[in-house]
């Protein structure tokens, strides 16, 4: 290879390195801490409402609404943080996060529908916590360490909920979607920004 081609290749390699470092940094710090706290607070409200639900169908409707509200809140928080950091939501880190996070959530939605049809409501809470935790881990693989720790904590709670009587499900859901989001959200916000 001649000097000309060599220099061309090394300059290209340098630009690729700059780009990948910038993307890794963005992915590392993109998680919205205060957004997670808001999601946690909405989950505590859902747990309180769910605890008073008269039927299992009403309970499922409350948590389905909470799931949608949480996705919306999380998305708004992501946009807010991305705008503050000057990062595009269509960037490859954002795509990687979406591709890692969405499949377990979609699997959870399908399994919930199947469980409700078969009247297997007692397993639903454990299933949600387990699959959400899996999504957090796969989506946040390159993110800050608290994100991965939160995913593991969700999965541990989910496993616990699956083998605990149904009357404790609300406590597991409040502890997971409420407590873990608030706790880890505050931790992330203090260390890596809102």
């Amino acid at each position, binding site marked *: 290879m001649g*000097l*000309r081609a060599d220099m061309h290749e090394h*300059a290209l*390699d340098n630009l690729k390195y700059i780009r990948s470092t910038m993307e*890794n*940094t963005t992915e590392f710090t993109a998680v919205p801490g205060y957004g997670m706290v808001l999601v946690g607070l909405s989950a505590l409200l859902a747990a309180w409402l769910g605890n008073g639900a008269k039927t299992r169908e009403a309970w499922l409707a409350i948590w389905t609404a909470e799931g949608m509200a949480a996705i919306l809140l999380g998305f708004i928080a992501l946009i807010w943080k991305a705008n503050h950091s000057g990062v595009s939501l269509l960037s490859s880190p954002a795509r990687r996060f979406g591709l890692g996070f969405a499949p377990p959530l979609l699997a959870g939605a399908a399994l919930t529908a199947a469980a409700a049809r078969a009247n297997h409501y007692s397993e639903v809470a454990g299933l949600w916590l387990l699959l959400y935790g899996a999504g957090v881990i796969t989506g946040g693989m390159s993110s800050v360490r608290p994100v991965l720790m939160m995913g593991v904590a969700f999965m541990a709670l989910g496993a616990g909920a699956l083998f605990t009587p149904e009357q404790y499900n609300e406590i597991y859901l409040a502890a997971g979607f409420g407590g873990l989001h608030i706790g880890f959200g505050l931790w992330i916000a203090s260390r890596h920004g809102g």
Partner: protein
Amino acid sequence: MGAKPNLVPLPQKAIGLDQIIHERVRLGIVSALVSTKKLSFGELKEILNLTDGNLSIHARKLEDAGYVECRKFFEGRRPQSEYTLTLTGRKAFEQYVNHMEALIHAMKPKEK
């Protein structure tokens, strides 16, 4: 994600590259800081997959050149260092990227 701590083999003196920023680890530090407002020592270490000593040496060189600023403080009892890119550092980075793009354009191998 790990940085290669060796110099990129471009004949930098001949083409007037910024010697401070051209070194691979320092280029990684500056690239990371361009993407976010501030990063702690631990975060930089994790993102760039560096050892404490290696990061310290190169971060100090960037500080001495006025490209980054380091704020030291205590979190509880633990000392923390937080790095931000200065305006000089940002300009140097932009100039470096422009330089690379110009090189790519100028040195594009001719098709036979």
